[in-house]
């Protein structure tokens, strides 16, 4: 699987080239276009051994329940992937270094990577953002997407990130959900609410914009439902 990103950073799309026999797994609804020899199968999880329980867990993760698997027939093929919102993408080679990805940031991966739902404990419930995060493990290429620009932070020691701005982080990092200000009142009035405090050594990838902040700004401008 070879991934090429075009039109970065605002209107990024990923062009995934596949040889016969290679399979690309992508978030449902991400396909923009593809060569006509591409076969799509939709499953609840990875092609092998997907169970309904896992699928249900994925649903809770804010990801859709289903994943699409793209496999070219006979000749090489390509598939273009995009997102709903404007923003950048990131191609990450994984070499058995596990990655925790925020639900909405997963875009695609190749067969070498297993997508699992990581339960981050009750502490993440408090964060007010996506409760579940995906755990990517194995050897291969992963493609992540973000709302806005994406930038890595090398953490050595402690670092604090707003929960809505996390794209992914290395599993080597410990994290806890905490308040941003000195007191809870300050945090809530300051509009920061909860933040994620990382400790240890590893990388956190952050996005410049926060999906739910934008949504809340947009919401009142939209027509009332029903």
């Amino acid at each position, binding site marked *: 699987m070879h991934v090429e990103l075009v039109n970065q950073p605002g209107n990024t799309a990923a062009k995934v080239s596949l040889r016969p026999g290679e399979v690309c797994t992508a978030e449902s609804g991400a396909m923009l276009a593809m060569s006509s020899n591409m076969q799509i199968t939709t499953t609840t999880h990875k092609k092998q051994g997907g169970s309904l329980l896992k699928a249900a867990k994925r649903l809770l993760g804010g990801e859709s329940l289903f994943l699409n698997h793209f496999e070219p027939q006979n000749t090489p093929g390509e598939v273009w992937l995009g997102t709903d919102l404007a923003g950048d993408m990131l191609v990450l080679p994984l070499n058995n270094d596990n990655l925790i990805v925020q639900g909405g940031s997963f875009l695609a991966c190749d067969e070498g990577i297993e997508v699992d739902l990581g339960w981050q404990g009750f502490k993440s419930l408090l964060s007010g953002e996506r409760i579940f995060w995906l755990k990517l493990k194995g050897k291969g290429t992963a493609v992540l997407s973000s709302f806005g620009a994406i930038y890595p932070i090398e953490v050595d020691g402690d670092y604090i990130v707003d929960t809505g701005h996390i794209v992914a982080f290395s599993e080597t990092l410990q994290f806890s959900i905490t308040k941003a200000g000195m007191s809870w009142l300050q945090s809530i009035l300051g509009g920061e609410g909860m933040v994620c405090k990382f400790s240890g050594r590893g990388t956190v990838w952050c996005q410049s914009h926060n999906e739910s902040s934008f949504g809340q700004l947009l919401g009142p401008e*939209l027509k*009332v439902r029903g």
Partner: protein
Amino acid sequence: MNNTMIDVVLTGELAEGISFEQACATVEKLFKLPAEQARQLLETAPRVIKRGLDSETAEKYRLTIEKNGLKVRLQGDADTAAKSEVLAPETAAVPATAVTSAVVAQAPVEAAPAIARQETAVSTTATALAPAQPVAATDFAGLKFRIDGSPDFGFLTVQLPPGQMLKVEASAMATMDTNLVMKTKMKGGISRMLSGENLFLNEFTAENGPGEIGIAPATPGDLIHRYMRGETLYLQSGAFVASTPGINIETKWQGFTKGFFSGESLFLIRASGEGDLWLNSYGAIIEIDVKDGYVVDTGNIVAFTEGLEYSISKVGGYKSLFFSGEGFVCRFKGEGKLWIQTRSVGAFAGWAGQYRPTKD
């Protein structure tokens, strides 16, 4: 380090005394291309013809091509420039003499973040005063125009010679010269009204001397230009931005099944004739050469050439139909060109829908 990443861009401008036909022949010979492809290359110029060269090789290319009466410009690699811009702005300029850092409006896979950023900073009216500003001027057979802000925020500025008329999508005009006079025309009558496309096209005529018009499409995204020589293009309704009078704009009924299942508009716009045509998109535009077939999400089609046949079908099995998130797709067959956009209005609206207030 910057010297190693230079792109050679064929601007499409011709030296004096060279006709379009001669230029085609030159390109054909120089790049050993079939005649048709050479012609296409020139028609869709400016185009990147060589990527990632070191400055010496790039300069050689430039000399050879210019000797043959075609114009090229060299430009620094967009990514390199983008990164170095933050650290030291002056290092981003590759060989200062050659680089005009212009937007390559038509290059399909042209990520030019640094350039786009510069462009947005440039006020459109200031360009007449400052010729050194980044400009994507193209003057072959068509009108002079420039596109700023691609691929994120495409903005089109067209120079109209005296007496010249330009058809523009309704409400897309952002700025214009006082020499221009606007007339609103109903195009295509009732069928156009049904297409969901604005019923009215505005016609801007430079009646009292030359004029300039600035056009801002409704969606943030890319703009592309085609100089049409009698061919026909089909556009998704909404993709039309502007054209010269030689281009005939009609709406075309897709048939009940095609239109209905696609979830998109029942009509496509058919553009044919000779002249300039500008299209826009929501998101960046990607150009795809279709050899034997291609599948596109119905919400991501911008335009396609006449040679392509299409049908609406489901993406995989029935399970995929309901659960893949893709629903129906457009299957193209045959040979031709296809333009897709990297974002879709429908998908964005779907995302925004979850934030809609509920009635209580």
